C-alpha cells in the first residue's frame, strides 16, 4: 500500500475518487451549495469552533475516556484492547458529536426548523436533544417498521418535543426515512436544515459529518500515546453508514503502521443474502445523493438490508469508505448477528460494560484480531454506543419478553 500522507479528500466537487458527489434533483443544488459555503466558512471560524468545543465538553461530556479492557484482553490472550468510550457521551452514542455540530451550523445559517432521518432512533434522539436545547422545531422521519421495533426511542424523541413521522413507503426502514427527509427538505428548503446522521448523502454531508466526528480519532490518537507511548497497531470500528468508523479512522489515515478494520454486519451470514454488508458483498452505484457501494439487484433496485442491529441496517455506506476500500487503506470485514451477540455478552460480563449491538460487531472482530496478535501490541476499538436501547432485542433472542 502506498503512503497516504497526501490524502486530501473529497475534492472541491465532493468526490472521493469515483465516489461521493452530488446526485440530487435540481431543487436541492442551491441549498447544498449554501450549506457547503457555510461549512467551509464555519469549520475554519475560531469563534464557531470554540463554541463547538465548549458544547462538546460541557454538554456531551468530552473527551470520552480511552479504557484499557484488561480483563477481556487477558481472556483473549493476545493484543491489549483499548475501548474508546463513545458510549459515555450524552444520549449514549457518538451520534451527538455530529448533531451538536450541525445544529450549531443551522443556527448560524438562520434556519429555524430541523429535520432528520433515523433508523434505530439514536440519531433521531441526538437530533431531538440538540433541537430542544436550541429551541428549534424538529421533525424526525423514521421507517414505520423501525417505529414499531424502537418504541422507547420514539417516546424519547416525543418527550424532547420532536414530531416523529412514520414512513410507510418502500421497505419502511432507514433508507426510506432518508428518502422522506429529502422530500421534506426539497419542499421546505428556505427555513429547514437537514441534519444527516451519517457520512452519506450528497456533498458536503460526507465531509461535514466526518469532520464533526473526527474528534473521536483526534482524542484517541492522543490518549493511546499517553497510555502506551506509541500508536496502536490496529483500529476497529463498526460500519453501517460509517460515521463512527470515519470519525476514528480519519486522524490516523497517514499513519501507515496503524492497520484499520471496518466491520460490516453479516446479519444471518453473507451467503444467505440477509446482511448489511455493501462493502464486502455489494457493488458501486448511486443512492441518496452519492456514488458508493450498495446492496442492489441486477436492475439497480436497492435491496433491503438485514442486521440484528438496527443502526447497521442500511444498504449503502459512506462514499469515503468506498474509496478507502479501493485504496486498500482500510480492511472491510464482517461479523454475523451471532458473533456480535457473543461479544455483547462477553464484554458485559468481563468488563461490566453493556455495549450497543452496533459496537458489538466491532468488538467481535477485535476479539478475533487480537487473538492473532502479541500481548505487547494494541487494538483500539470504537465503542460507539451503549446497549441500553438493545435490551428488548437481546432479551428476545434469549427467549425473554421484557
Amino acid at each position, binding site marked *: 500500500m502506498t503512503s497516504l500522507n497526501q490524502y486530501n479528500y473529497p475534492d472541491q*466537487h465532493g468526490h472521493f475518487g469515483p465516489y461521493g*458527489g*452530488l*446526485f*440530487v*434533483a*435540481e*431543487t436541492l*443544488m*442551491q*441549498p447544498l451549495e449554501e450549506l457547503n459555503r457555510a461549512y467551509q466558512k464555519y469549520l475554519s471560524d475560531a469563534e464557531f469552533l470554540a463554541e463547538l468545543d465548549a458544547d462538546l465538553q460541557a454538554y456531551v461530556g468530552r473527551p470520552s475516556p480511552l479504557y484499557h479492557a484488561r480483563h477481556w484482553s487477558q481472556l483473549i490472550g493476545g493484543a491489549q484492547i483499548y475501548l474508546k468510550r463513545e458510549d459515555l457521551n450524552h444520549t449514549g452514542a457518538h451520534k451527538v458529536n455530529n448533531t451538536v455540530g450541525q445544529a450549531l451550523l443551522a443556527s448560524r445559517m438562520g434556519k429555524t426548523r430541523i429535520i432528520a432521518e433515523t433508523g434505530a432512533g439514536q440519531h433521531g434522539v441526538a437530533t431531538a436533544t440538540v433541537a430542544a436545547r436550541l429551541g428549534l422545531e424538529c421533525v424526525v422521519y423514521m421507517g414505520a417498521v423501525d417505529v414499531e421495533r424502537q418504541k422507547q426511542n420514539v417516546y424519547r424523541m416525543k418527550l424532547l418535543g420532536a414530531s416523529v413521522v412514520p414512513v410507510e*413507503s*418502500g421497505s419502511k426502514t432507514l*433508507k*426510506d426515512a432518508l*428518502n422522506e427527509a*429529502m*422530500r421534506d427538505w*426539497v*419542499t*421546505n*428548503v*428556505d427555513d429547514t436544515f437537514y441534519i444527516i446522521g451519517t457520512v452519506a448523502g450528497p456533498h458536503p454531508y460526507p465531509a461535514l459529518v466526518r469532520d464533526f466526528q473526527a474528534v473521536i480519532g483526534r482524542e484517541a490518537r492522543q490518549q493511546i500515546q499517553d497510555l502506551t507511548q506509541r500508536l496502536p497497531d490496529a483500529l476497529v470500528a463498526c460500519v453501517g453508514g460509517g460515521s463512527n468508523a470515519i470519525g476514528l479512522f480519519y486522524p490516523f489515515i497517514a499513519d501507515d503502521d496503524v492497520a484499520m478494520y471496518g466491520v460490516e454486519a453479516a446479519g444471518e451470514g453473507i451467503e444467505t443474502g440477509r446482511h448489511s454488508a455493501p462493502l464486502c458483498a455489494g457493488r*458501486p*452505484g*448511486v*443512492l*441518496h*445523493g452519492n*456514488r458508493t457501494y*450498495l446492496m*442492489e439487484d*441486477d*436492475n*439497480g*433496485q*436497492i435491496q433491503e438490508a438485514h442486521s440484528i442491529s438496527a443502526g447497521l441496517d442500511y444498504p449503502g455506506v459512506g462514499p469515503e469508505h468506498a474509496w478507502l476500500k479501493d485504496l486498500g487503506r482500510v480492511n472491510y470485514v464482517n461479523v454475523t448477528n451471532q458473533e456480535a451477540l457473543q461479544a455483547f455478552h462477553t464484554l458485559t460480563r468481563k468488563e461490566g460494560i453493556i455495549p450497543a449491538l452496533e459496537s458489538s460487531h466491532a468488538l467481535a472482530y477485535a476479539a478475533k484480531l487480537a487473538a492473532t496478535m502479541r500481548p505487547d501490541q494494541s487494538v483500539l476499538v470504537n465503542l460507539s454506543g451503549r446497549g441500553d436501547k438493545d435490551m428488548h432485542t437481546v432479551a428476545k433472542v434469549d427467549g425473554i419478553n421484557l
Partner: protein
Amino acid sequence: MSRLHDTFQQLKDNHKKALIPYITAGDPSPFMTVPLMHEMVAAGSDIIELGVPFSDPMADGPTIQRASERALQHAIGLRDVLSMVEQFREQNSQTPIVLMGYLNPIEVMGYETFARLAAESGVDGVLIVDMPPEETGALTGYLKANQLDMIFLLAPNSTSERIEKVVSIASGYLYYVSLKGVTGAGHLDLDSVDQKMQQIRSMTDMPVGVGFGVKNSETAQSIGRLADGVVIGSALIERIESCLDTPESAIPAVSELLKSIRTGLDSI
C-alpha cells in the same frame, strides 16, 4: 434533427403547446403500458415521458412512488422499459419518448450499453432526476453519440449561474419544476413561474416544459400560457390508481383527462 426538436418546431409553427404526459412503465401492469402510450397519443399528447421504476424515488411524491412500487411488484427493470418502447415504435415512429428516472439502474447497465440500447429501442431523450450537469461524466458523450437528447430540470431556486450551466449541456427541451417540492405537490404560484420563465427565456431559445402541480385543464392552461409545453404526471397516475380494480378502464380514464387538457391548451 431530433424527433424532439422537430416536434417542438412543428408545434411552434402551428402556435400550439406541447402536451407531455408522464406514466411509470409497468404501472399498473406491464401489459398496460404500450396500450396506454398509444391512447395518450390518440388523446393529443405530443411527447411521452416514460418513468423507469426505481426502489428509492427520492424526488417523487407519494403518487408516483406508489406507481413505482406497483411496477416493481412486476419486477420491471430498465431492459423491460426499453422493450416496451421498442414495441410502441412498431406502430408509432413519430411521437418522441423521453425516459425519466433515477441514475442507478443506468449505472448498473453501464452508460455505453444504455445509450446504445436506448437509441436502438427508439428512445429520444433521457431525463435523470438525480443527475445534475456536474455529475454527467461520460454519459453525455455516449448519449450524444447515439443522438439522444439530454433533458434537465430547472427549479425556482436555480441561480443564473446554474441555469447557464444546465443550458450549456441540455438539449431537446428544459423541464422547469414549477415549485419547490416533490412531484404531485399542491399549489401553483403563477407569478413566480412567470418571472422565472422570463429569466430562463432571456438565457436560451430552447423550448421549456413546465411540470409539478399541473392537475387539470385549468392549471394546464395557465401554465401553458407561460411555457412551450406542460408536463402532467401525478394527476394521470391518480386516474390509473382509481382504476386498479379494473385496470383496462384506466385507458379511457387517462384519455379523458388528456383530451380535456388538450382542449384547454388549444384554446390559449
